[in-house]
């Protein structure tokens, strides 16, 4: 419900769909003026007959304009709108579109009455087809925008139920709009054929086409069904593989690294106990689905990751971060990869280690450098997952890239990723 609706409904008229027979307009009027809705309905019927049906237009208008629900719902709706309620923006845009359409229809009808007109057989089909094409075009643009916004990772099975309901409702609405657009264009074509007395011939062609189409569908149905199932199975497998890789990367970065540290410090029982406690906390919070990254945004999370490496390996990391942004899925992936690169530098090279990151409008870049003896990335054992999965694989799964250059002068890991929505 829009703010305007609430403002009007605060002291005024509302529809009452619960008590109404059609849309609850008359029930709302009865409640507002304190008269039994039955009397209002009788009066309305008399007036409809007297006005030659014109009052039905007023009823439709009231249906479109008046907010729904019994009095008092506006206040509740202001804080907690029902999940299936259309958004205020959509209601407003719908009213505007309908209003502009009616005004254009009025202009067309005026031209027709004034004689500035080609012919009914051409103009009305054109109007219908234009409306249908506009609806389909708008739908395709909206679908394209949503496709661009699809996340790279699999949808979370723990997503709240209202979100899933809203998504299902939105997809039904898209289907309905698309179907309505197609129906309008087909209706325009049929109207054109009918108005030009060619519907009979077209009907024969259409019947032939439909029969051939049904026969083809019957033949192809099993293949199409199998193809659909195969595609769905492939998609599910791809999602499972991605989730497994993410899980493996996380376990490598957390549990395996901690176990390695504990082995290194086996002679320091207190240190080993502290490491175990920290890992336990981290693992519990991860299993509970809480965000493991600390800090308010990307810069905070990256700084926290560098501090964690410093604490765990008792080494210094020089951190320079230019700019900041919200920590989204891609930013988290870059933080995870940078942490693994820092851990490798702390384990195999030692100080000095530097981390430089830059947040730009469209992308984030990070560089992890050390001055160790270097290594040959191609010669790393395939069983070692640190570089292949936790750095390179993680960046690629999230649409980024990782490049490693290493030599006698040391090692540099370059991480690049485009920002969400950029």
């Amino acid at each position, binding site marked *: 419900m*829009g*703010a*305007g*609706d609430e*403002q*009007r409904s605060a002291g*005024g008229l509302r529809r009452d769909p619960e008590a109404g027979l059609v849309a609850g307009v008359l029930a709302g009027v009865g409640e507002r003026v304190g008269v039994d809705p039955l009397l209002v309905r009788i009066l309305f019927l008399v007036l409809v007959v007297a006005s030659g049906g*014109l009052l039905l*237009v*007023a009823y*439709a*208008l009231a249906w*479109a*304009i008046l907010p729904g629900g019994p009095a008092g719902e506006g206040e509740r709706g202001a804080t907690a709108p029902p999940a299936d309620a259309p958004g*205020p923006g959509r*209601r*407003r*845009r719908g*009213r*505007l579109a*309908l*209003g*502009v*359409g*009616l*005004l*254009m*229809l*009025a202009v067309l*009808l*005026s031209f*027709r*009455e004034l004689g500035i007109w080609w012919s009914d057989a051409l103009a009305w089909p054109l109007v219908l087809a234009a409306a249908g094409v506009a609806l389909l075009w708008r739908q395709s643009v909206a679908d394209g925008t949503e496709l661009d916004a699809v996340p790279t990772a699999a949808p979370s099975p723990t997503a709240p139920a209202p979100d899933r309901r809203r998504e299902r409702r939105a997809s039904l609405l898209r289907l309905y709009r698309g179907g309505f657009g197609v129906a309008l264009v087909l209706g325009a074509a049929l109207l054109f054929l009918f108005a030009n007395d060619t519907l009979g011939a077209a009907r024969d062609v259409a019947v032939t086409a439909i029969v051939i189409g049904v026969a083809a569908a019957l033949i192809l149905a099993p293949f199409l069904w199998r193809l659909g199932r195969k595609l769905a199975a492939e998609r599910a497998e791809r999602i499972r593989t991605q989730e497994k890789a993410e899980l493996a990367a996380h376990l490598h970065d957390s549990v395996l690294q901690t176990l390695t540290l504990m082995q290194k410090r086996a002679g320091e029982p207190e240190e080993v106990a502290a490491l175990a406690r920290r890992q336990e906390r981290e693992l519990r919070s991860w299993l509970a689905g809480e965000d493991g990254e600390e800090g308010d945004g990307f810069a905070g999370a990256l700084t926290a990751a560098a501090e964690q490496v410093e604490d765990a390996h008792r080494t210094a990391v020089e951190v320079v971060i230019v700019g900041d942004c919200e920590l989204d899925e891609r930013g988290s992936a870059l933080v995870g990869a940078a942490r693994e690169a820092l851990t490798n530098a702390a384990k195999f090279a030692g100080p000095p280690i530097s981390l430089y990151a830059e947040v730009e409008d469209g992308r984030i870049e990070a560089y992890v450098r050390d001055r160790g003896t270097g290594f040959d990335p191609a010669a790393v054992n395939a069983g070692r997952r640190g570089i292949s999965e936790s750095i390179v694989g993680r960046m690629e799964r999230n649409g980024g890239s990782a490049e490693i250059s290493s030599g006698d002068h040391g090692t540099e890991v370059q991480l690049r990723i485009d920002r969400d929505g950029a």
Partner: protein
Amino acid sequence: MSRRSPDLVGLAAGIAAVALGGLLALDRDGAITLGAGWIAVAACAAAGVVLVTSGLMDRRD
């Protein structure tokens, strides 16, 4: 003392209804002759004006 802004949607609907009623009354009286086509034009224009006003007012709110 706060002043309530006028309900422009209600105002537009009222003016449209009065204009439509006036046209029908003149037609009934014989002062003008309205065919079904012109009545449809008037009804569409009235409904369109009210809906557009409602949509625009919501955006302002």
